[in-house]
């Protein structure tokens, strides 16, 4: 409940300042446009569009998701938050905010992708949907934790993708594979191992986040 209040505060603040949403929207548009221009009339295979789909999601996430903690640090309001909420409340509040942001971002990218890329055809929609939900959750959890770490650093912009890349790599590779399976129309039974990896990734990152956040949050 308290975490939900942190989320509501952040959401209201976001609607007024457009700290993250604008950055995310611009990044999505720019990245997809660059891909479209660079491909030109070249024929693109289905699998390549699937891979590029996750490239767009990864870089868009890198542009917007660090804002949950960076905005507090840059405005100097971190101390205020430390004085009104326990670390776990802050972590879950920020996580809910990033989850909402990632779901919105992934929904927008999927919509634009389906419109602009003819070869992006999903045969097993349900498998793709489950992969998106689990993958987005994984991105949100790990991004929230990494955002908390880098918010104290001087070189926030550079450090975020650099730290995120190795952490998100196993997730992205699994998601690319699951997207291929969805395009091929494979069943859930066939993709089970990869879905289990996604679930495990979420559980590990969430547990790690809850355990480590106390140490990151307190100076």
């Amino acid at each position, binding site marked *: 409940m308290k975490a939900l209040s*942190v989320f509501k*505060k952040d959401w209201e603040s976001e609607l007024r300042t457009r700290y993250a949403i604008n950055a995310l929207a611009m990044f999505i548009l720019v990245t997809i446009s660059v891909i479209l221009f660079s491909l030109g009339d070249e024929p693109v295979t289905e699998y390549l569009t699937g891979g590029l789909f996750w490239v767009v999601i990864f870089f868009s996430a890198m542009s917007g998701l660090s804002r949950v903690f960076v905005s507090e640090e840059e405005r100097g309001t971190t101390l205020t938050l430390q*004085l*009104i909420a326990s670390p776990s*409340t802050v972590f879950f509040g920020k996580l809910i905010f990033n989850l909402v942001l990632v779901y919105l971002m992934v929904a927008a990218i999927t919509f634009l992708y389906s419109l602009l890329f003819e070869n992006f055809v999903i045969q097993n929609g349900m498998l793709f949907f489950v992969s998106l939900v689990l993958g987005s959750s994984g991105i949100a959890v790990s991004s929230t934790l990494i955002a908390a770490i880098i918010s104290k650093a001087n070189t926030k912009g550079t450090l975020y993708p650099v730290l995120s890349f190795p952490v998100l790599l196993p997730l992205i590779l699994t998601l690319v594979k699951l997207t291929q399976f969805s395009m091929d129309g494979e069943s859930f039974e066939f993709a089970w191992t990869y879905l289990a990896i996604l679930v495990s990734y979420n559980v590990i990152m969430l547990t790690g986040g809850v355990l480590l956040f106390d140490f990151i949050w307190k100076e």
Partner: protein
Amino acid sequence: MPYSLELINISKYFGRRLIFNGIDYQFTENKVYGIAGSNGSGKSTLTKIIAGVLSPSKGKVIHKNGGKEIIPEKLHNYIGFVSPYLILYDEFTAKENLQFFAKIRGIPFDENKVDDLLMNFGLHKRSNDILKAYSSGMKQRMKFIFALQHSPKLLLLDEPTSNLDDEGKETVYKIINQVKQSAVVVIASNEKSDLQLCDEILEISDYKRRNNNANKRIG
């Protein structure tokens, strides 16, 4: 229930630079304590350590309410903090800020109490303005309302009268005398008029030496 605070052998280093060493001190209810020292001596650092937002390099801070030790997760519920480093949310109005703080703390928003505080600090006419439009003195007054909103048992005031006019200072002194009846008040300041309110003064310079066993109390 009486509130008490104990500093046990507190030391703080920033890198290899010693800020203070071996502070042992006890704070009890119904008293106003001062932390005095020159600029850069570590007054703010000590108040942050007491508030639990900064870890000491060595030693322990024990907060007790009714003889029972308060766990760090719950500490923020007992502390009111005013500091030059404290920045509230500029994009929200005074009332919105206070509503969000109450929700995040998990306490009901006491409109009457908030109105009284706004009236006492002369901000009632501007309570629906966003903080961005406030002067530095008004923001300082707002910090006091933030610190007093949840009736804290420990009121930590770091340079409480900076940016305040004479009327504002008088209000602060009146509030300190009221609050000390049921709470511990700690003032970190260089202002003589602030320190005159104190029953005991902890002089930071007494704890500057390495392996210092000083534990002086100046009444």
